[in-house]
Structures are given as structure tokens and as C-alpha cells.
């Protein structure tokens, strides 16, 4: 059953010649880890931003969890969690203070919220540092708190925008293991990354985007096996999107 249905989604930014995404249609099934892959400027962030309600598409239809994006955004915001690529935390607040604030914004409070914060801090090995300011954290620790902030309300769908970029191996391992656990508990994860090996291991299905178009969709193994020349997801990716540099300004 599709938890996200995207039909002919198009978005063109003001002043831009080409649409950022051009008539994309996609179904994401419940309880899968779906990888949205593509070079810089492919349209991944635009797609996720629209799905999160950050702005409206020019045309197309989106249903998330059965709710229409145009008419039921408020309901959608209750069932999704977003982990931005940036460390979207307040550096001068402690991890607990940050998580309390974001939990409150999801409507959580009191003991329930405190318990969830403690539970997540323990899961991510941060319970001893909960009262330290975020500004004192390492990159990996910040990433973990960044992830927890999007999970506190136990969303049905979690959007992760490059959650493991620029962090140490141990932190990456903790995050990836947790994402597997999360999938097992029934959460649907939509994930973007430039790490093809990570996507290959983590995702049940991937979509490769380029220049606003969806150019391939399927299970990583299916895509790799579609051509004997493909050794892994990275070779698939490079074959489909080319080896030219994609500097995005």
C-alpha cells in the first residue's frame, strides 16, 4: 500500500529557465526505506521540501498517509518527521533543552516527553551529554541529536536529508543501525544521500533523479542486475547521470 503518492509533480523556481522537478510521479510503500538519489541540482531537496509542506508545487498531486497535501497539510505535519541536512538545533541550548522545545512543538509535554527524550538519548549514546550545550558537541553527536529531534513524536514517515554527511564512522554506524530498527518498527523512511554504498545497503528501493526528472526506480539489486556492467549502485548512478561534474550554485 502506498503511503506517499506523487502524481505529475512540477516545480519551477522564479527566474529559472528549467523546472527544478518536472512531472514526477512516484509511489512510496509503507514501511520501506526509500532512497532519493541524484547529483547536485537533481531536484531531491525540492521534492522533499514539497512533501514536507515547505512550499507548494506548480502542479501535480501529492497524497501522504491518505491526506491530500493541498488540503490536509496540518494533518500531514503530525505524521511526518523531518531531519534537515543542516544541524537544525540551537547551539547555545543543551540537547535536552533543544529536544524539549521541538517535542513541545509536536504537542508533546510532561513525563511522556521526558521519557522519550531519555529513551532516545540512551539509544544514541548521548545520555551523559544531555545537559551539555550543542555547541560543545562533535559533528557526529550533533547529527545524532538532529535525528532525535525529528523522531520524538514517533512519525509514520521520516524524511532524512543526508543524515550521515560529514560524521565519524561510529556515529554513522549508530545512525544506520537505528534506521534499520526504525524500519522494523513500521516507520517509512525517505532518505537522500550522496553515499551510494550506504544507500545500497540501507534502502529497500531507490529512485535516481537527474535535472528534475526521475530516471530510474527500483530495488538496488534490481538496478545493479539490470546490466552486467553494473557492479554496484555507484556504477548504476554514474552510468545514468554521467561523470560530468555537477557544481550547483
Amino acid at each position: 500500500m502506498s503511503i506517499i503518492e506523487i502524481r505529475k509533480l512540477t516545480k519551477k523556481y522564479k527566474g529559472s529557465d528549467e523546472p527544478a522537478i518536472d512531472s514526477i510521479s512516484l509511489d512510496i510503500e509503507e514501511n520501506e526505506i526509500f532512497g532519493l538519489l541524484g547529483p547536485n541540482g537533481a531536484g531531491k531537496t525540492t521534492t522533499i521540501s514539497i512533501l514536507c509542506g515547505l512550499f507548494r508545487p506548480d502542479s501535480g498531486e501529492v497524497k501522504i498517509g491518505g491526506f491530500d497535501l493541498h488540503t490536509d497539510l496540518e494533518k500531514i505535519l503530525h505524521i511526518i518527521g523531518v531531519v534537515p541536512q543542516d544541524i537544525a538545533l540551537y547551539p547555545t541550548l543543551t540537547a535536552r533543552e533543544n529536544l524539549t522545545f521541538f517535542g513541545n512543538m509536536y504537542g508533546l509535554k510532561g513525563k511522556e516527553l521526558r521519557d522519550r527524550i531519555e529513551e532516545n538519548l540512551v539509544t544514541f549514546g548521548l545520555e551523559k551529554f544531555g545537559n551539555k550545550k550543542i555547541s560543545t558537541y562533535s559533528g557526529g553527536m550533533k547529527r545524532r541529536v538532529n535525528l532525535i529531534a525529528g523522531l520524538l513524536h514517533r512519525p509514520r514517515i521520516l524524511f532524512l536529508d543526508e543524515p550521515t554527511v560529514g560524521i565519524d564512522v561510529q556515529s554513522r554506524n549508530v545512525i544506520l543501525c537505528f534506521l534499520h530498527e526504525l524500519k522494523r518498527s513500521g516507520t517509512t523512511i525517505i532518505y537522500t544521500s550522496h553515499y551510494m554504498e550506504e544507500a545500497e545497503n540501507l534502502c529497500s528501493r531507490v529512485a535516481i533523479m537527474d535535472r528534475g526528472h526521475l530516471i530510474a526506480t527500483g530495488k538496488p539489486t534490481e538496478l545493479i542486475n539490470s546490466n552486467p556492467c553494473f557492479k554496484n549502485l555507484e556504477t548504476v548512478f554514474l552510468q545514468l547521470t554521467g561523470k560530468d561534474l555537477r557544481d550547483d550554485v
Partner: protein
Amino acid sequence: MMFKFFSAFRKEWLILVRDLAGLIVLFVMPMCMVVILAVVQEFGWKDVASDPKLPVLFVDLDQDSLAAKIERGLDASSFFQVVKTVDDKPVTAESARELVRKGKYQIAVIIPDGSTEKVQKKIEFMIIKMMSGLKMGSMNPFSDLQYNDSVQVQLYLDPAIKPSFKNSVLCSMREYTLKVESQMIFQTFNSQLGMMFPYYKPSNNVYTETVMFKESYPSGKTEEILPNTTQHNVPAWTIFAMFFIVIPLTSSIIREREEGSLIRLLTMPVSYMTVFMAKIGVYLVVCLIQFALMMLAGMLVMPLFDIPALEIGGKLFQLILMAVATSLAALGFGIVVGTIARTHQQAAAFGSVSVVILAAMGGLWVPTYLMPETMRVVATFSPMNWAQTGFYDIFLRGGLIVEILPEITKLLLFFLITVGIAAAYRKWKPPISA
């Protein structure tokens, strides 16, 4: 809804109080600014208010009644201090000229030798000429005679002298000279009449001033609040300092956007207006604390600099209303700048310069009545001008609520319009990049 508001308020407050250096800047710097600017401006205000005691070099080459009376008149006025010796040496015409040329003094008055005698002779000539008409009728041989020897009082002026100073000195000199001349005319007229009519008995002290001036304030509040320099300066510089809230507020808005927290908040089931109002709430509290501290500085610190203390005069409620309205106008301005500016540098540069422009435009530096006509019209568009008018209504004119209501309304409308512009801009241009 309220629970989310208070949570956002707490978050914003914690961020603020954790930044110790920022707090010092927020609370101590405006106080310093108000005190320093008010002290510096004190002298400027005294030009038109009271007791400036402008030093005037005075060289008396006349050594007679005209110079003596001008000197007494200048010295007795509360505006001038007659200086006749510098470095224990008597001031001469030459040294006075040199002292003014070097800018050590702004004005010097030299009464030439024989001035009294010349004035006396000219008056006698005029009286005799006038009286001769009584004796000789149409055959008067004096009728066409002229007496051209007049007294030339030399004034040396520093080019940097304020026109108000120069005019004050000239007006005072003319006033004292005319008084002396009038007295001489009466005395000479008396003596001439005595000579013409042996039975005429001259009366003493015939000359008295006939036109007097009575000062009063239509507000009728002088018994409560004396309009002194502090009452003018503290509100003006307080408004100026309050508008500098634009800098930390824009910084907070841009930081939230740059760090990505804004995007996270926009994907949460909370109205961004709730979070934003919490931010405004915290900065409103900051503004009100700043205001209270600056008022306290006016009341307690000013007297330490020998400046009259600020008198609130039981208008606390009106003051709070005006402070809230002014703060909201300042916050509204900060919100627009913070929303539209792309970087901290843009916001800081534009924010600070625009506050200075609004202050100058609004009459905080130069009273609007001294501005050209066009600028006086422009001043009425500055929120700082509205705030200043409101505070002056309270501090100087009695300030009933109904009297400050127009200013409060304008400031609140300004807040609503600026917030509306920021919201429209945010809707038109979401804070995300592809």
C-alpha cells in the same frame, strides 16, 4: 497553542540569557549611550534652555558709563559670562582678537575709547536741535545740521560660533545700548528743559521699562515637571537606543534561518506565527527592561553629572503604554529587516544605518522646528518622531492618555504593517534553496 507559545518563549529567553556578552550589549550599552549623549547634548540644549554662561571677552576702552552698563547687563544676564582677564592678564583689543582667531573664545566685544562721550554728544546735539525749534520756529538755523560721529562697537567672532549665540549677544548688546541711550535722552531732555524754563523742576528716575514679559506653560504642569534638558534628552536618546533592538533581533532571525531551525519549525505542526510571536514577546521584554534602565539612568545617573534628574511625575501608565508601542514599532522594523536581509552583514549594516537615518529624520538630533519645510513633512513619517512626540507629550506637556493616543495608534499600525510585509515576503520567498 499557548503552551507552544510559552515553550518557544522559554527557548528564545534561554538563548538570550546564555549570551552574556550580548546581554551586556543589550542592556548596558543603551544606558551608556543615553547618559553620554544626554551629557554631551546638555550644553547644546542649554543654548536655548537656561544658564549656558557663554564666555564673552570684554575690552572696555571707554572706561565710562556706556561700557560699564553694557558689561553689567551682560554679566547680569544668565546667558553670558564677562571675561576681562585671561591667564591673569587683562584682555586687550589685540589679545581678544587673537584669542578669538585661535578659537579659544567664540566672541569678543570691544567698546572703543570715548564711546560714552560720543553717544552723549550726539544725544545732546539731537535734543538741542529738537528744542531749538521751540525758540526759532521756521527760521531755525540748526534744522538741517547733521551729527555723523557714531560709536562703533567692535565684535570679533569665531567662524564656528552658533548663530543662536551670535544673535543672543547682538540682541543683548543692542538692548543694553538702547537702554543707556534712552536714559541719556531723558536726562539730557530734562536738563535742556531746565535751562529753557527756570521754574521747571526735573524729576528723578523718569525712565522705566514699560513692556514686561510673563512666561507660562499652557500645559499648566510646570508645578509638577520642570521642562529641563533631561526631560528633552533622555526620551529622545532612549527612543534611539530602543530602535537598536533591530540588530540583535535581525541577528536572531537570520541565525535561526541559517542554522536550519526555521526549516525544521516550518515542517512541524505549529503555526510559525506562534513561534514568531514568542520571539517578539521576548524582545519586547528586552525593550521594556532597556527602557526601564534608561529611565533609571535619567533619574539616578544624570544628577551625578550635575544634570537635572528625569522627572516622571506620576505618568507611569502613559509611559508604559508609550514604551510598549515604541518597542513594538522598533521590533516590527527589525522583523522586516531580519526577514528580507540575506546575511548578518546586510542586516547589521542596513539596520544600524537606517536607525540613524530614521532618528535624524524624526527630529531626535535636530528639533523638527529647525528643519527645512520639506524635512519637517518627511519627519512626520518617522516612527521615532511619533515616539518622541508621545514622550514629549508625557514629559513636557502633561500627557493625558487621550493626547498620546494618536502616536500610540501610529506606532502600533507601523508594527502591524511591518509584520505584514515580513509575512508576505516570507510567503513569496520561502527560506529554502533548491
